[in-house]
C-alpha cells in the first residue's frame, strides 16, 4: 500500500512543476479569508458550486459559467434555481448537488477556475487537482463583498462597479424620500404549514440593514433558522411584513388557512395591506438580487401611502 502514495505524490509533484512552467505567465495570486490561490488572469471556463448565488452572479456579470451545481427533482431534468427565468442556460452543464458535486463531471469540462461557498471548504483539496479552487466568504461577509471578490476573480470589476453604483443610488434615493427610515419596522419571515422561520431571501436582510430600517423587538429577541410556532406571530408584528413563497411547491396553498385566521388578520401590517408575499426564487443572493429587492422595498415603502404603528 505504500506504492500508491509514493507514486501519486511523485506524479503530482512532477505535474505541478510542469504546469507551473507552462502557466507561469498567465496566473496571479488571489488572496481572501480562505487563503491564497493561484488563479488564471482571464478564466475561460468557470465552474460554480452554488446555483442560487454564485451562478446567478456570474451570469449577471456577463461571465457565463460553463458548469454549475443545480437541483434535481426525481427524473426530470435538473434545474438551476433562480437562473432559468432570467438567463439562457443552454450549454450550462449540471455537475451534481452542492453538497457533493461530481468531480469527474467537473473534470470533463476542463475548467480553469472553480468557485465555491464557505461550507464547501472541505472539497477544496480534491477539486484543486482539477483547477484552482477559490472559496468565497458567503457566510461572514455581505453579498457586496463576496460579489466584489468574484468580479475580481473573473476580470469583471467594471460590471460589478456598475451594479454597485445602481444599488447605492437606490439606497440613497430611499433615504432621501424617507428621512425617518429608522422608525419603520420590518419583519422578514417564511411561513410553513405549522410554523415559521425568520429568513430573508434574495438579500432582503442586507437591503433592510443598508436602508437603515429597524426590526420589531420580538424579531430582535428571536433566533434565525428556528421553527417557531405560529402562535408567536403576533410578536413579529411590524409596520410591514414580508413572506416568501416557493413557486415549485404549493406554499401559498399551505399557508392559506393561517392567512384566513383571526390571529393573522389582527396583525397591524395585514390590516393595513402592508403584508408582502414575494417569490422566493425570483432574486438570488447576488447583486442583482440586492438591486431587485431594494427596488421592491423602495416602491412599497417610499412610493405609496405608508401607515405606521405609532
Amino acid at each position, binding site marked *: 500500500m505504500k506504492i500508491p502514495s509514493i507514486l501519486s505524490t511523485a506524479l503530482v509533484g512532477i505535474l505541478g512543476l510542469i504546469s507551473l512552467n507552462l502557466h507561469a505567465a498567465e496566473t496571479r495570486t488571489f488572496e481572501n479569508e480562505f487563503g491564497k490561490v493561484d488563479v488564471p488572469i482571464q478564466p475561460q471556463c468557470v465552474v460554480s458550486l452554488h446555483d442560487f448565488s454564485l451562478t446567478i452572479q456570474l451570469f449577471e456579470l456577463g461571465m457565463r459559467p460553463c458548469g454549475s451545481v443545480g437541483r434535481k427533482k*426525481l427524473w426530470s431534468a435538473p434545474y438551476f434555481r433562480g437562473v432559468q427565468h432570467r438567463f439562457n442556460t443552454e450549454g450550462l452543464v449540471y455537475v451534481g448537488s452542492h453538497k457533493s458535486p461530481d468531480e469527474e463531471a467537473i473534470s470533463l469540462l476542463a475548467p480553469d477556475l472553480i468557485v465555491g461557498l464557505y461550507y464547501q471548504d472541505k472539497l477544496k483539496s480534491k477539486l484543486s487537482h482539477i483547477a484552482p479552487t477559490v472559496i468565497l466568504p458567503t457566510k461572514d461577509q455581505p453579498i457586496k463583498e463576496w460579489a466584489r471578490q468574484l468580479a475580481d476573480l473573473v476580470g469583471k470589476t467594471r460590471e460589478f462597479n456598475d451594479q454597485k453604483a445602481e444599488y447605492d443610488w437606490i439606497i440613497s434615493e430611499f433615504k432621501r424620500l424617507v428621512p425617518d427610515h429608522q422608525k419603520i419596522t420590518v419583519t422578514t419571515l417564511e411561513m410553513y404549514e405549522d410554523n415559521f422561520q425568520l429568513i430573508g431571501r434574495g438579500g432582503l436582510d442586507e437591503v433592510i440593514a443598508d436602508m437603515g430600517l429597524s426590526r420589531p423587538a420580538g424579531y430582535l429577541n428571536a433566533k434565525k433558522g428556528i421553527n*417557531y410556532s405560529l402562535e408567536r406571530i403576533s410578536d413579529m408584528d411590524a409596520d410591514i411584513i414580508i413572506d416568501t413563497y416557493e413557486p415549485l411547491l404549493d406554499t401559498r396553498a399551505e399557508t392559506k388557512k393561517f392567512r384566513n385566521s383571526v390571529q393573522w388578520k389582527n396583525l397591524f401590517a395585514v390590516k393595513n395591506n402592508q403584508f408582502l408575499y414575494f417569490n422566493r426564487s425570483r432574486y438570488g443572493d447576488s447583486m442583482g438580487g440586492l438591486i431587485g429587492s431594494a427596488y421592491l422595498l423602495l416602491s412599497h415603502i417610499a412610493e405609496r401611502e405608508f401607515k405606521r404603528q405609532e
Partner: protein
Amino acid sequence: MMQSQRKHHAERRFPTLKLTGVVLLLLAVVVASFWHLSLGAKSIDWTTIWQALVAYDPTNSDHAIIRESRQARLIVSLVVGAALALAGVIMQAISTNPLADPGLLGINSGAAFFVVASTLFLPMIAPQYLPIFAFLGAAIAALIVILLSGWEQNAERLVLAGVAVTAMFSAMTAILLLIDQQGLDKLRHWLTGAIGASDLDKLHWVYPYLLGAMVFSFLLVRSLNAFHLGSRVAEGLGVNVLLLKITGLTLVIMLSGAVVAVAGPIGFVGLVVPHIARLLVRNNYIWLFLYALLLGALLLIVSDIAARMVLRPYEINTGIITAFVGAPVFIALVLRKMK
C-alpha cells in the same frame, strides 16, 4: 381463601374498582387537555380557555389562538395517542411478545416510506388518498417482518427483524429525499412525528378508518381473552387462531397507518401504554382496551406538552419525546424480564 374468592366474584359482577379507574383517567385526560390548551408560546389562564370553548369571541386574540391552533392540536394528540395505544395492545396480544410496538417493528417506517414516495411520485393525487398508501406501506412492512422472523414466538428475532425492516425503509426514504431536494425541505419536519394544527384536516380523511378499527377491535375482545390462555386452549374454546391473528394484524395496520398519514411516525406509545395498563387491570381485554385508549391519549398529550416546554422557545417534535421516554422504559423492561 373463601373470602377472597367471594370478593373476586363480587368484583366480577360489578367492577367498581376498574370503573373508578376509568373515571379517574377521564378526569386526568380532561385536566391534561386544559393544561395543553393553556401552554404554548403564550400562557393562557383556564377561565379564558373555558370561555373560548363555550362562549367564543372572534375578536379576542386569545380565543383565536385557542380555537384555531391549540384545539386542533389537542384533538389530534388525543386521537393519535388512543389509536397508537390500541394498536400496541393488539400487537402485543397477537404476537404474545411483550416488546412488540408498531414503531419498533418497522410498520411505521414502511407507512412513512410509502407516504413520502406517493407525495413525491404522485403529487397529483388528492391528499385524501394518502392514508391508503400509508396502509399499503404498513402492510408490506408487516409482511416482511413476518417473513424475516418466521412468526415464531421468539422475542429477539421479531425485534431484530423489525430493526432490519426499519433500517431498510429509512434508507429508501433517505434516498428519495436525496434525489428530490425539495422533498427534503418539505418532509423532514413531518418525518420525525410532528403534531400540528394543520393535521386536523388530515384527521378528517382518516377518522372513518380509525373509528371502524376501534369499534371492530372491541368485537375481538372475547377471542383475545381466550387466546391469552394459550393457543390450544383458545382453539378448544372455538377460536380460530389464524383468523384472529390476521384480523388483529389488519387492525394494527389500519390504526398505525392512519396515525402515520396524519402525524408522521411516532413510536413507543404502543410499547409503553399496554404495560402500564396491564399493571392496573391485569388481562381482561375489554378493560385493557378502555384503559389503553385513555392512557394513550393522556401520554400523548403530556408528551406534546413536554415537546413544547422542554426547550422553549424551540418546539421539539412529539415523536422525539416519546422515543426519549419510551426507550428507557423498553430497556428497563428488557433488563427486568430477560434474565
